[in-house]
């Protein structure tokens, strides 16, 4: 059985979700899996809701776009309203706990998690909410190894922010454990 994750990361421009998508894909490559990342461009990506998508698989990936995600993350209400509805029946929805989910939404797992609050109050910077989210996603799915994820994060972040990002990652893993 090939390990496959079709992930949609959504939020507002500037939350670092495209970077998070690239980091997760690069971690998958380090684990010798295949990965493809795509993202929304243009007016859609500036303000409003932006999204990054990642497919990770043991097998070759032909079609590069996510059609029905197996996991969707939303960090803002606007992104949630726009993207959360497309989810596989076996899929997992993760939203920031500030988000109101529409009634009747169906997925195997629906988690409301204080991602942004954790970044702000426990790590000290809202900007690392994307790394908290990555810790949470990998903690839940085990789709990549923790070692590869940390390496991939370290090679994509600005110098001098290593400790901050390591802490954010740790807090993300803790959020996953507490579910």
């Amino acid at each position: 059985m090939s390990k496959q994750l079709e992930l949609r990361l959504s939020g507002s421009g500037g939350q670092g979700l495209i970077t998070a998508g690239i980091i997760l894909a690069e971690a998958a490559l380090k684990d010798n899996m295949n990965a493809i990342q795509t993202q929304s461009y243009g007016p859609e990506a500036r303000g409003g809701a932006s999204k990054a998508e990642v497919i990770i698989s043991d097998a070759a990936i032909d079609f590069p776009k996510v059609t029905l995600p197996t996991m969707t993350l939303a960090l803002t209400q606007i992104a949630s309203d726009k993207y959360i509805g497309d989810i596989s029946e076996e899929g997992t929805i993760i939203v920031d706990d500030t988000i109101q989910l529409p009634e009747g939404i169906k997925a195997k797992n629906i988690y409301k998690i204080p991602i942004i609050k954790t970044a702000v109050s426990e790590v000290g910077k809202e900007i690392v909410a994307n790394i908290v989210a990555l810790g949470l996603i990998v903690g839940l799915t085990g789709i990549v190894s923790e070692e590869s994820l940390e390496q991939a994060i370290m090679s994509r972040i600005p110098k001098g922010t290593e400790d901050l990002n390591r802490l954010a990652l740790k807090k993300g893993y803790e959020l996953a454990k507490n579910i």
Partner: protein
Amino acid sequence: MARKVKFLQGNEACVEGALMAGMTFYSGYPITPSTEIAELSAEGLPRIGGKFIQMEDEIAGIAAAIGASLTGAKAMTATSGPGFSLKQENIGYAALTEVPVVIVNVQRGGPSTGLPTAPGQGDLMQAMWGTHGDHPVICLTPDSVKETFDLTIRAFNLAEKYRTPVILLTDEITGHMREKIEIPDQSEIEIYNRIKPTLGEDYKAYKVYDGDIVPKMADFGSGFRYHVTGLMHDETGFPSNSTKNAAVLMDRLMAKIENNKEDIITYEEIETADAEYLIVAYGGTARTAKAAIKTLRAEGIKVGLFRPITVWPFPEKQVVELSEKVKDVLVAELNYGQMKLEVERVVKGNCPVRFCGKANGEVLTPEELIRKFKEVL
């Protein structure tokens, strides 16, 4: 032999390939979804002593690239639909003056400024017929990030070998998606450089010497005096109104591509050996077709894929052969049926040719293609 594994966009891989092919000059006018090609060329070229110039528009972008190529540089320009339209006149100029140049068109939704951030494949026919007058065309279309790298190198090699503009026709799908690419060591890359003259005063700029495919090309400014014009010209390069001379020149221009199709045309076939049905797809849409074929094969349906990698000149011979074996051909593309016309032309009624496509800025999904395919069963 240092191979590097990277996670790149197709546009980024294009620049990696261009630099490895020996690009030393880029001029253009940035346009979505090709902009990363300009950005990375601007970053990469100064580091190797090359030049990047952002010109005032797309016309000047290709004009400067042609000029640079005449002085011996390997030159590239990149654009998308609206800019590709503007470059057409100078593509014809490069074809007649036989100046090697690589033109990248990362296709978006058209016509006009259309859908800047969304994929399309509506420029296939423009790549062939966009500039006026009969002229040879080489046009290559990748379906992955790695192939974008490979075909950029090949585009430079073919441009140098056949002294002709080469169009790398990609799309927003392959241009913007990131995937794994293993970048080979420079020593593993085959590079073709134009043949330069050593003949001194006897040099004729547009004379084909024994054993050559094209005239030897002197770097402008290197001491060889010659003339370059978009008018019909004789072997010296000076204009000539002689119809006899024009016929010789036109025949030679067309023949240098026509007689070397075996070298120029490449394609991919998947599951065609026992195929009863054929899907034809290229560029980003071929990825949709590859996924669809896996699903259909798993259901026991004998369907194969023919993917032209060289779209111009069109792989006629291969499509004809396949059309004699299968019951039906389905052409999938993001337009209203441009390659379908070409497939119909060469298949000549051997089997029905059907079409699956759209031009609203969305990609074709495997499910949509499978649904259309199954109408034949």
